[in-house]
């Protein structure tokens, strides 16, 4: 997401109108209307007034978080666990991604398009399932081993990273590579010396972005029992100890902030124009070494043993689950349930993304740091940005459970929970887009006598609409996976079906549902990327 922003500004848009955009626009309006109608937001009561007192207790506790030294020590320890999982999971994902990139790069396959398509298609399976779903599956094979948390991050992230790395490698100019091959170098050597150096900046930038995301994923995995901050949050939450919940949330927010700031600093540095002369940037070098060192510490801290992956017990459990899960169930009533819950999931994700985008656009002006502003405006900006940080620091399932107190059950609590969380993410991204937008057109209009609103509408909005919609579509692809997660913890959609079938240990049905989840994610990805292409 932010990588999109860190790149150089795109060339000025063509002035011609694109007819495809009409079709996409109408389809989007229709889908939004269907989703809002389906969520019950427009028909009948959705609020539960009786629950306001309980929601009030949750909100009031924000001002008096638990500060007992014993509990703070537990939280500090949980932070270490979360960081350890994030670094190891993210690091392993980068390794897997590097290997995978070679396998799915167009260059590897050359003209053999079928092979390339098949390997790309295979990657859709690991990346189509949410980290939490991987966590649940791995728990059934590896038990309480810390590998569960590490692999649950590494497998889906590895698949995504492989695709992105391959694209980065395919996009760099191939002159150096071809020259080396022509001079008699082997293909491997030519790739190492001809392809990697020009792609290095992009690869490094993306790697740090992935590590940043891994922190959030490690928190979510805690919710399903992998330990760390998410686990602490789940425990405090189930016992309805709101003061403890808020202490954990603040710790989460600080950790996310730290990851954001560090990751962004490194990525900005990579994106900065290179200074002439040999030698490498010591800050970047130190960052890479710090990550490697941190990974070493994390392996020791979690007592991760490679032997556990190849133990007899792992083999036994893997064959138990595999034998039970194949063939997938084709029971008609199950397929019917899959279809209805898949539609619910889609509607939830649409409601979430529409509300989040609307909110993000409304807040963008305040979230962006203005070039010159008074102290009041600055304070307001800090407040809005801190609020957005809190919104995205609380994992969506927690939002869903809190919202269930004040909303009647249905798909709305889950959809709103995702909307709130996505608003936290999109608010920041749209704010950054506003900061980076060209300020000259609105300034020129103002100077020519236009009203502030007119200057904004005609000077700023046209340039921002494209990037903001592209961000929203990209987040939609992420949201559909999060919807499965929210459902897994009880808030509607196909995740509920998945959790019902896993708790009944109905493995053939689990396979069917997982297949549907992968297909749904894949379909949304295709739709999203087509729509973004039409925006370009």
């Amino acid at each position, binding site marked *: 997401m932010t990588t999109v922003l860190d790149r150089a500004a795109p060339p000025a848009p063509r002035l011609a109108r694109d007819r495809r955009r009409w079709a996409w626009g109408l389809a989007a309006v229709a889908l939004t209307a269907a989703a809002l109608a389906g969520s019950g937001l427009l028909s009948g009561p959705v609020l539960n007034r009786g629950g306001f007192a309980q929601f009030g207790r949750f909100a009031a506790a924000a001002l008096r978080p638990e500060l007992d030294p014993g509990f703070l020590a537990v939280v500090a320890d949980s932070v270490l666990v979360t960081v350890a999982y994030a670094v190891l999971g993210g690091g392993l994902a980068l390794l897997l991604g590097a290997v995978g990139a070679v396998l799915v790069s167009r260059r590897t396959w050359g003209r053999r398009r079928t092979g390339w398509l098949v390997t790309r298609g295979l990657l859709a399976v690991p990346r189509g399932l949410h980290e939490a779903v991987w966590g649940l599956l791995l728990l059934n094979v590896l038990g309480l081993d810390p590998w569960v948390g590490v692999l649950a991050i590494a497998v889906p992230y590895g698949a995504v990273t492989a695709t992105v790395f391959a694209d980065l490698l395919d996009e760099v100019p191939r002159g150096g590579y071809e020259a080396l091959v022509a001079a008699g170098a082997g293909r491997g050597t030519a790739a190492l010396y001809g392809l990697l150096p020009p792609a290095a*900046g992009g690869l490094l930038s993306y790697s740090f972005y992935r590590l940043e995301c891994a922190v959030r994923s490690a928190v979510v995995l805690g919710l399903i029992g992998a330990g760390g901050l998410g686990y602490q949050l789940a425990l405090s939450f*189930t016992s309805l100890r709101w003061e403890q919940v808020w202490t954990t949330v603040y710790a989460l927010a600080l950790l996310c902030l730290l990851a954001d700031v560090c990751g962004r600093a490194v990525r900005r540095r990579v994106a*900065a124009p290179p200074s002439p002369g*040999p030698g490498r*940037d010591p800050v970047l070098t130190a960052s890479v070494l710090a990550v490697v*060192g941190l990974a070493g510490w994390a392996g020791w801290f979690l007592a*991760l043993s490679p032997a556990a992956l190849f133990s007899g017990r792992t083999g036994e459990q893997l064959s138990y689950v595999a034998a039970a899960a194949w063939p997938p169930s084709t029971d008609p009533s199950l397929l019917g349930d899959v279809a209805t819950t898949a539609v619910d999931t889609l509607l939830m994700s649409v409601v979430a993304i529409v509300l989040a985008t609307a909110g993000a656009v409304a807040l963008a002006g305040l979230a962006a740091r203005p070039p010159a502003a008074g102290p009041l405006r600055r304070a307001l900006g800090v407040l809005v940005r801190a609020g957005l940080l809190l919104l995205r620091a609380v994992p969506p399932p927690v939002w869903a459970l809190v919202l269930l107190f004040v909303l009647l059950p249905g798909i709305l609590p889950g959809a709103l929970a995702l909307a709130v969380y996505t608003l936290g993410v999109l608010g920041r991204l749209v704010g950054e887009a506003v900061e980076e937008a060209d300020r000259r057109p609105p300034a020129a209009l103002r100077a020519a006598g236009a009203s502030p609103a007119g200057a904004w509408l005609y000077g700023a909005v046209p340039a921002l609409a494209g990037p903001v919609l592209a961000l929203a579509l990209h987040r939609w692809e992420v949201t559909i996976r999060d919807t499965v997660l929210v459902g897994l913890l009880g808030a509607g959609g196909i995740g509920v079906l998945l959790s019902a079938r896993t708790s*009944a240990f109905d493995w053939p049905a689990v396979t069917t549902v997982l297949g549907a989840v992968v297909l749904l994610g894949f379909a949304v990805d295709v739709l999203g990327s087509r729509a973004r292409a039409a925006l370009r």
Partner: protein
Amino acid sequence: MSTVRAARSGGPETVTVPLLPRLSRRALLAGTGAALAAALAGCGAGSAAAPDRAGPLRIGAIPDQDPELLQRLHAAVADSLADALGIPVEYRPVTDYAAAVSLFRTGDLDLVWFGGLTGVQARLQTPGAVPVAQRDIDADFHSVFVVNTATGLTPSDDLRPLADLRFTYGSQTSTSGRLMPAYFLREAGVDPEGFPGGPGFSGSHDATLALVASGSYQAGAVNEQVWLARTEAGEVDPAVVAYARTPGYSDYHWLLGPRAAERLGGPDRVVGYFTGLSPDRPTDAGVLDLFGAGSFVPTEAANYRQIEEIGRDLGLIS
């Protein structure tokens, strides 16, 4: 690490800050190598520490109520059991019912306090698992249907008025919060899945009480023991009242895993420990009190046959 190394080989393109000393390629590679070696050493140390047979006996429980209460309860059991068996015992909390079953199957948990249904699931998946003991109250356990006072319903034996309410169960595979209430609802002619908007699954008995108190759900089903304990402690929101009580059924029991049974030379020592707990000894009385039991009695697989049949009927055992 090839990415990291390879990524850094793009030397000429990067920014140089003169304040810090430049690193030569060799120094960089050596540093990375040293860090990797440290990482591998860390992994090696981990593998040496991996416990198997000689480790502690690991006990667990389905997370049916407040995790802090469970922690206190099972820490007490762990201490007392360690004294009785002469081996270390540790409590491992889990976050959901299905995870407790899976971890029992993988052998990560040796002795687990299961509900009726999860106990059957775990036993069917783990050849050699033995039910060892249940509380005196478990042979004749009950659930309570609770309603929000705003529904205006008064206590009754007729379950049919519940059919039109927003209704939440506890966990998906809770015996007292899902399976048996669903069974008795069906016996009374109410479709256990047919509530408006579909039934909810709160996750635990305490969460059910909180949601019914809020009114988001108008009715729910909870474990009678939890209901009585919370009522006595005055922790139930006055907006929640009992509506009906189910007939009795067999519920909670301790299940011993095959590896632990082998290690302890059969289940007898564990059975002996539980049945030997006496309210007259202060430490034992503490454990029994936390469990809300007068005593523990031996149990056997046959006691849960009805649960298994109902579980199959409702699609919760496959």
